[in-house]
């Protein structure tokens, strides 16, 4: 790092690498400011700003990543493998076969283990606000619903009771919405009592939700209300959902929140993720009256392998201001998606190897440490008050650079094991 210009390195206090122990932001759940866009607070599901924090059996002084980082990264890898499975044509065929045989595919969707960000949204009339996982990598919105015919897991908020809402209605079979459940979930819906449309969704970690497809009022804020929003009212729900009431699907499929509110918000939304598990971010819908002056846009690409995902054209990477010698075809052959539910970015193996080599070279003055699960570029920073880390930028089509913030470069379990927060796919073709 000593060979790099000051502009090409982050100088980080090592004390900032470990999670904070208290919430550093306001924990108010709903922002409802006149003349402003509808905006929701985002908090980390297991973080100190989450109302679910204490109830998940954690002490207030620890975050989820501190508790079991190996398990945390294992879940992240399960999500990535599920995404790969979903995107491969071979698997799509296998899934079709499996669905026809009425057996649920083991890895039909996204793993949720690390989709850790939650927002609070109101369901029904009067609105009952509850925390749902916010996920750009999946489409169907669902919550647990009474009477929980088969099973509901423990959640923080009271379970939604349709009989207490004046705006609830079941969607029947042979409707457009019911048929759209297939592409939103990967599983053909079935027809239940009174011709109710029954959806099923299973995630890569075998978490699942099954229930009625319904229409109901959805409140983003008390003044920003979506009537007749279609979502799943889960009657049998199990898995890695923590104490969240369900999920808000922000993918591009027809049943996603983004598509259903297209007339209202124009398919526009933005977010700032909390940079630590002890701070808050925001999720905002609709066009911004004034875009940030620093914004730069890159084209979003639709890919037939997964039309509901947000594909981007990643073309190059720089480390410490130096562009890595990676052929653009390495990125182009596999494609790149942006996902709010995956924690650690994944790169084609060739690209990762080049990144790792440049990063290690810049960090050669620091002792290395043993690998941590999927993270194999780790350092022992014990004894250092400050460290100099090379800046990393991801370059996208259109000359757009994602300059990774210093908080997004490293994943630390302890000061003795601080790892580069990037991982490799098994194969460039993944």
């Amino acid at each position, binding site marked *: 790092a000593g060979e790099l210009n000051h502009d090409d390195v982050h100088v980080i206090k090592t004390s900032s690498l470990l999670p904070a122990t208290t919430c550093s932001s306001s924990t108010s759940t709903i922002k409802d400011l006149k003349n402003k866009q509808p905006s929701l607070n985002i908090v980390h599901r297991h973080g100190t700003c989450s109302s679910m924090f204490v109830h998940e059996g954690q002490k207030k002084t620890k975050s989820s990543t501190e508790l079991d980082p190996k398990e945390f990264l294992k879940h*992240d890898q399960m999500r*990535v493998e599920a995404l*790969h499975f979903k*995107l491969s044509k071979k698997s799509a065929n296998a899934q079709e076969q499996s669905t026809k045989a009425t057996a649920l595919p083991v890895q039909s969707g996204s793993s949720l283990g690390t989709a*850790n*960000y939650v927002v609070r949204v109101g369901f029904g009339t009067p609105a009952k606000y509850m925390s749902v996982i916010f996920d750009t990598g999946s489409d169907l919105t669902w919550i647990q619903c009474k009477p929980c015919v088969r099973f509901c897991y423990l959640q923080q908020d009271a379970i939604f009771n349709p009989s207490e809402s004046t705006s609830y209605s079941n969607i029947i079979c042979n409707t457009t919405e019911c048929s759209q459940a297939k592409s939103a979930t990967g599983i053909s819906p079935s027809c239940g009592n009174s011709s109710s449309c029954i959806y099923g969704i299973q995630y890569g970690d075998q978490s699942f939700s099954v229930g009625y497809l319904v229409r109901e009022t959805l409140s983003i804020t008390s003044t920003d209300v979506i009537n007749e929003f279609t979502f799943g009212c889960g009657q049998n729900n199990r898995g890695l959902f923590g104490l969240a009431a369900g999920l808000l699907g922000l993918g*591009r499929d027809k049943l996603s929140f*983004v598509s259903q509110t*297209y007339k209202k918000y*124009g*398919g*526009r*939304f*933005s*977010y*700032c*993720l*909390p*940079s630590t598990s002890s701070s808050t971010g925001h999720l905002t819908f609709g066009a911004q009256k004034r*875009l*940030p002056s*620093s*914004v*730069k*846009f*890159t*084209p*979003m690409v639709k890919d037939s*392998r*997964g039309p509901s995902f947000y594909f*981007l054209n*990643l073309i190059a990477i720089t480390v410490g201001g130096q562009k890595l010698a990676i052929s653009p075809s390495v*990125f182009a052959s*596999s*494609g*790149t*998606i*942006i*996902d*709010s*539910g*995956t*924690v*650690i*970015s*994944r*790169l084609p193996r060739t690209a990762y190897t080049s990144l790792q080599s440049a990063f290690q070279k810049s960090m050669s003055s620091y002792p290395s440490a043993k690998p941590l699960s999927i993270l194999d570029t780790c350092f022992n920073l014990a004894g250092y008050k400050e460290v100099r880390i090379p800046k990393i930028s*991801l370059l996208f089509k259109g000359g*757009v*650079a*994602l*300059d*990774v*913030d210093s*908080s*997004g470069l490293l*994943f630390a379990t302890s000061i003795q094991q601080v790892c580069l*927060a*990037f991982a490799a*796919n098994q194969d460039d073709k993944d």
Partner: protein
Amino acid sequence: VGIIGNTQQQKLEVIYDVGQNKLGFAPGSCA
């Protein structure tokens, strides 16, 4: 497929515009 994960999206406003088929990154606007 490569994936831009949420760790690398921190402290950066991510702006989705599905109508215009574009996605923006705005550094410095998440304060």
